[in-house]
């Protein structure tokens, strides 16, 4: 409840003209938005585009948010929709593109990665996460990376806690098996 109150205050401050409040909202949620988009799109630049779109939507539309759900639930829905639309758009774009075969490689060299080791780790994690069905990947990322509780994930996604636990279990099992295979 306290968390909702804090978000409520931030939104109110922003709507009263305090742009620092927007920055706080961005600081609080941008990592989650990024990783959700990254999980769906598997590319830094694509994820970055979705992140900026989502934040721009927030900036423009926060005045319409009425706190019937938590702020993150709203952000999550926008992120999920935008990521999905981006995927579709990309598919259409690739179709129209003259060199449609030349689709940007996942984890391309252009990606902003500080060092080779981190790049390798990211690639490995990405490859493993990509073997998971979307639902499992989503729950795993929200729980492991974002530190969300099952209750919070259930609120954001509209899924049952039991179903989420089962999805996480299967995700963890597959990830462990995959790691073991590679060792």
């Amino acid at each position, binding site marked *: 409840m306290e968390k909702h109150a804090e978000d409520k205050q931030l939104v109110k401050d922003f709507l009263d003209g305090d742009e620092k409040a927007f920055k706080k909202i961005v600081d609080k949620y941008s990592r989650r938005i990024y990783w959700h988009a990254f999980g769906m799109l598997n590319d830094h630049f694509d994820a970055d585009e979705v992140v900026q779109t989502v934040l721009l939507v927030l*900036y423009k539309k926060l005045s*319409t948010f009425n706190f019937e759900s938590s702020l993150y639930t709203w952000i999550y829905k926008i992120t999920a929709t935008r990521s999905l639309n981006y995927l579709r758009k990309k598919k259409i774009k690739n179709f*129209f593109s003259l060199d449609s075969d030349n689709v940007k490689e996942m984890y391309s060299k252009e990606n902003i990665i*500080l060092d080779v080791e*981190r790049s390798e780790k*990211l690639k490995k994690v990405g490859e493993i996460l990509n073997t998971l069905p979307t639902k499992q990947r989503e729950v795993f990322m929200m729980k*492991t990376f974002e530190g969300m509780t099952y209750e919070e994930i259930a609120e954001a996604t509209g899924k049952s806690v039991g179903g989420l636990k*089962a999805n996480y279990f299967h995700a963890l099992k597959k990830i*462990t098996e995959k790691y073991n295979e590679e060792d």
Partner: protein
Amino acid sequence: MKKIDEEKILKMYSGLLSDSEAEELKNSLDNSSDPENFTSRLEDELTDMKEIYQNYPEPNYFHNLSNTVISKVEESKTSMFQPSFAYALAIAIVVFVASQLMNFNTVDSNSEYAAMINASDLEEYISDQLLDMDEFAEVIISDSNELDYAEYLLSNTGPTEMFQASEENEILNLLDESVEEAIFNELVNKKIL
């Protein structure tokens, strides 16, 4: 040596064990030799992943995001008055009117609503979709095949949902879904995708 029950450990991490079962398992792990170091390996893997999550992308990336977005908003306000926007908007309106005229004899519920749309509604819609504006202009200008796509986009923007929905945040989703879904479905129907 006691073989540990990996399945149980995974269940514990998944929250599928009750508190008492998890406690019991923890105790038995403390007292066992855990021959394959399964728990620590699992924890290492998760820590590894978390570390990537916390360190990627570059630290400045998140730091600069809000400024980037705020300057984009400012940019979008000024770009409303730039020739490229005006040009694209003018073309968009022409294409839209043409598509409406072409569809005049085949009035269905969509075009009925579409006929209600006027230039200022369209302008409002396009300005709402500013992020897609460059792409939109590019699509209209670049290729005649894509002109069909642009026409389709314009004649199926779902003014129904756009101008009649009561919830603004609902509109956001509907806008995207109606436009994108319509294009996507049409391409699928035409067996292009």
